[in-house]
């Protein structure tokens, strides 16, 4: 490394302490990266999905169809702050349009353009409006009763992909989630704002899915765990790698 072309050996020798310093710092940073980029739960959500607008009627994920998911958020984890007793928490996932549809019976894989938006709202249980799915959304209460209140977290959704098995009637989706706004955005350290979301979806319930909705959804959003760190001196770090 020190015998870089054009760099005289004497200069290299003179710079060796500096290079050692840099190398040590890099090693220290490397040591701080958690194995497998461990994730932590940010929030858990349950709800239903539907399509709006519908460009291709009768075909879920038809090219140009818009995807909308909405529901309640029964679990919010630190660093978000919640009070489920006095507030209801809802989510709305929107802004996604089906752009590619791979059909391999019984599977259908739908890819969506983005970025979409996944927003978590906080609404007073005493003075706010309770969420109401209604039927055949969009309708008088959905999504409006899910978007009232305070947007506490707004995330951009990209690479949204939906996998459906038409034989079993169920499937899943996942996407990148990047926190970009909301009243609690500052609670999430900048280095932890790029996470992901996933959910299981099913159309198999005969009684739980309100008329006009396509599937019920159970999902969660995860963000990277904070990088563990502790105070130390350069001397201690250098000794560790000698």
């Amino acid at each position: 490394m020190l015998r870089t072309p054009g760099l005289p050996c004497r200069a290299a020798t003179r710079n060796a302490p500096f290079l050692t310093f840099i190398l040590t710092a890099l090693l220290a940073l490397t040591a701080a990266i958690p194995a497998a980029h461990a994730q932590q739960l940010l929030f858990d959500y349950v709800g239903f999905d539907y399509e709006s607008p519908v460009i291709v009627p009768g075909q879920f994920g038809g090219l140009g169809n818009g995807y909308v998911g909405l529901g309640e958020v029964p679990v919010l984890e630190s660093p978000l702050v919640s009070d489920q007793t006095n507030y209801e928490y809802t989510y709305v996932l929107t802004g996604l349009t089906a752009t590619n549809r791979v059909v391999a019976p019984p599977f259908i894989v739908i890819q969506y353009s983005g970025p979409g938006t996944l927003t978590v709202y906080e609404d007073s249980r005493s003075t706010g409006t309770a969420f109401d799915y209604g039927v055949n959304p969009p309708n008088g209460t959905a999504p409006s009763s899910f978007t009232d209140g305070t947007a506490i977290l707004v995330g951009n959704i990209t690479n949204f992909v939906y996998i459906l098995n038409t034989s079993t009637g169920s499937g899943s989706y996942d996407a990148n989630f990047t926190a970009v706004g909301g009243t609690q955005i500052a609670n999430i350290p900048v280095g932890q704002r790029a996470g992901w979301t996933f959910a299981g979806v099913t159309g198999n319930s005969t009684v739980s899915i309100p008329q006009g909705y396509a599937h019920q959804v159970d999902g969660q959003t995860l963000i990277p765990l904070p990088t563990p760190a502790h105070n130390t001196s350069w001397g201690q770090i250098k000794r560790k790698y000698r």
Partner: protein
Amino acid sequence: MIRMIRTTVLALVACALAAPSHAGLVIDWDPAYFYSTTPGVTATNAPAGSTLFIVGTVSVFGPPLQFLNANDPTKDYTFYIHGMSSNGTTPTAVPPLGTAYVTTYTAGTIELYEGTPRDAAFDPNPPNANVPSTFTNGTLLLSGTFYNFYTQTNNFSNFSTGNAEANISWTGGTLLPFMSPGGQPCPSLFTGGLSWHPGVVIPGYLFRHDGKIDLECPTPARSSTWGKIKALYR
């Protein structure tokens, strides 16, 4: 014409009355983890005869179990699903993306417990000293047959995600009457998403599962006549 309209309206009203008395989320968890005691099982291949076990901690209860507090610091609510074995994994090519995999299982048993203290621990490499024992200590609140279970995975999703689903017939436990309004146990749907992303799976487990159980009570019905129904709404 008027008679036809009236008949249609009455039929619609009768249908509206048939809405289920209990439908929707009754148990939500975060997380549950799946594991096998058969060597060689992976997220995309569970050879026929291989075992599967699920342990989980409940995070939210909905009606008719909303009186249970999943966040009670002195208790934990846990579940254990056992007795299933794989019927084999079926791959399906999804060109140009990759391959999807569906694995079906024989029926097993689901058990829901209320335990003190709050000690459930997803220790690595189950079975071990705490798994499943810390998920099966306490009072058996519900038990039932877990059937039609399957997992769906693939090798092309961005975050290694899929889903799992099953039906449940409740048969026992101290809270069985709550799941049986009218004396007839309601069937339930076990559903939710799976991930085998290395950032969320504990060593020795196959999947992390985010899911729920919906209670799907059949519509209570009794024989009647059009005359009686019409009389009801006059």
